[in-house]
């Protein structure tokens, strides 16, 4: 059954059909929510809330990109949570690095434990840097650079113009670059910048 048929069945009140969509997009939705919230538990709450809103709002889906439409609901739910002050992401690097008993788990690869540990270190530092960004820049860099959406998809997901995506993304990238260069020694060796003269603004 193709996605359009499933969506139509879900729109008529078929919860089981909607759950097929949930199983397809829950990984994407949860990872976006995690990068936005900076916290695994808050991300789970936001994701569940977003899917419930999506089910109730299916009547307003106009048949364009379901992925972009769903991500818009996810990001808006995360904005609401952040505005309400429910869970603010940690911006202290020491706290992030000391978070040894975190509740999140990486998708397992067929890799050595040392490689898994390196990916965990990368994840911590990246999330710390992302947490420093304002929510609007954070959403753009997550959708485009982390999740690989195009500028158009990101503009549709965020409900903003293409130029807005471009400007927010560039500012986010410049800020992230400066932060990551600042703490480059905390990165595993294979992730460090190989130039001898690091760029300084």
């Amino acid at each position, binding site marked *: 059954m193709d996605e359009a048929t499933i969506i139509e069945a879900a729109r008529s*009140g078929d*919860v089981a059909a909607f759950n097929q969509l*949930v199983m397809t997009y829950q990984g994407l939705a949860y990872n976006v929510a995690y990068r936005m919230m900076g916290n695994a538990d808050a991300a789970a709450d936001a994701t*569940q809330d977003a899917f*419930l809103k999506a089910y109730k709002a299916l009547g307003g889906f106009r048949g364009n990109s379901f992925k972009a439409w769903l991500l818009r609901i996810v990001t808006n739910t995360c904005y609401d949570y952040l505005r309400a002050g429910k869970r603010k992401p940690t911006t202290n690097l020491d706290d992030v690095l000391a978070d040894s008993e975190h509740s*999140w788990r990486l998708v397992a690869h067929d890799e050595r434990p040392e490689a898994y540990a390196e990916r965990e270190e990368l994840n911590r530092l990246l999330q710390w840097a992302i947490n420093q960004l304002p929510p609007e820049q954070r959403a753009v*860099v997550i959708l485009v650079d982390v999740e690989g959406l195009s500028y158009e998809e990101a503009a549709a997901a965020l409900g903003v113009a293409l130029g807005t995506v*471009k400007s927010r993304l*560039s500012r986010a990238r410049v800020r992230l670059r400066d932060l990551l260069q600042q703490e480059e020694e905390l990165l595993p060796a294979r992730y460090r910048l190989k130039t001898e003269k690091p760029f300084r603004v």
Partner: protein
Amino acid sequence: MSYHTPSELSDELLSAYLDGQVTATERARIEKALAEDPEVRERLATLQWSVSLLREAPRLAVPRAFTLSEADVLAAGGKVKGVSQPGWMERLLAGLSRAMPAATAAVAVLLLLVMGVDLLGGRSAQPQTLGMEAPAESIAAQATQAPTPQAEMIRPAPEAAVTVVVEKVVEATVLVEKAVTGKEVTEALAPPAPSEADETEPKALEVQKESAEAEAATPESLAEEEPVGGAAAMAEEAPTESAVASTEAPSPTQEVVERATSAPRTEETAQLQPTAPPVEKAAQPQPTASQPSSIPTPWRLLELGLLLLLVVMIIITFWLRRVRSKI
């Protein structure tokens, strides 16, 4: 086309260049700058490095499935195929059943507060009434329980009366003897008033009578039997002697007999009257606030109203539960 110096190339343009989001003209300019200016190359390289890190960001595993249940959907107000949507009545009942327990608890708390205020207000007014009642209560308690000096003076009237009569008669006898012996003749020269002289014998007889009655009424007074008997004998003697002495020395005997009769007479009145009235008189307190007024206070009315409301709300709560369980 004007040539822009490489330093005028913004990071935004370089960022867009990374994603291919530039025009042909912008691309040419940027590529020329990259070829000529190492600083532009450095800026682009670091931007590219940070973007590549973001693209390598590890994916997190979902902690659980985020699938929805029909119950979750219905609870959130969503529609489910094959499940009839609750009408306004069901929604109203659902809302009421959620609100009723809390509202009932609030009414119960309010009722307790009102009762507490009423109780404290009643107790604060009681010390005055207690002060007024205490003597009466104490007297009543004394009258009904342990005998006290006051109660003894009131209650065991027959015994006390007899004792007093005896004492007075003895005193009278002594005075009469003195009068007969003539020791106080000079003082007794003043003739008595006729009414008083006529009353002495009946009074004396009454004394004799009363003493006999008192003796009969007190079987317990064995210890005083002889004195009583003696007093009775003396009482018998006293009137006769007083009657004899009255012709010669009326004043002292009159005084003696009057004393003898006045005391028994007072005791007689105390004896005849039941013990209850004095106690009752003492126990008749002033109307106080402890006596419930027939008109309920505003606080009592409020308590009754809240109690009725609480009962009604409890009934409604249980009824709603029953109705919703059937739906």
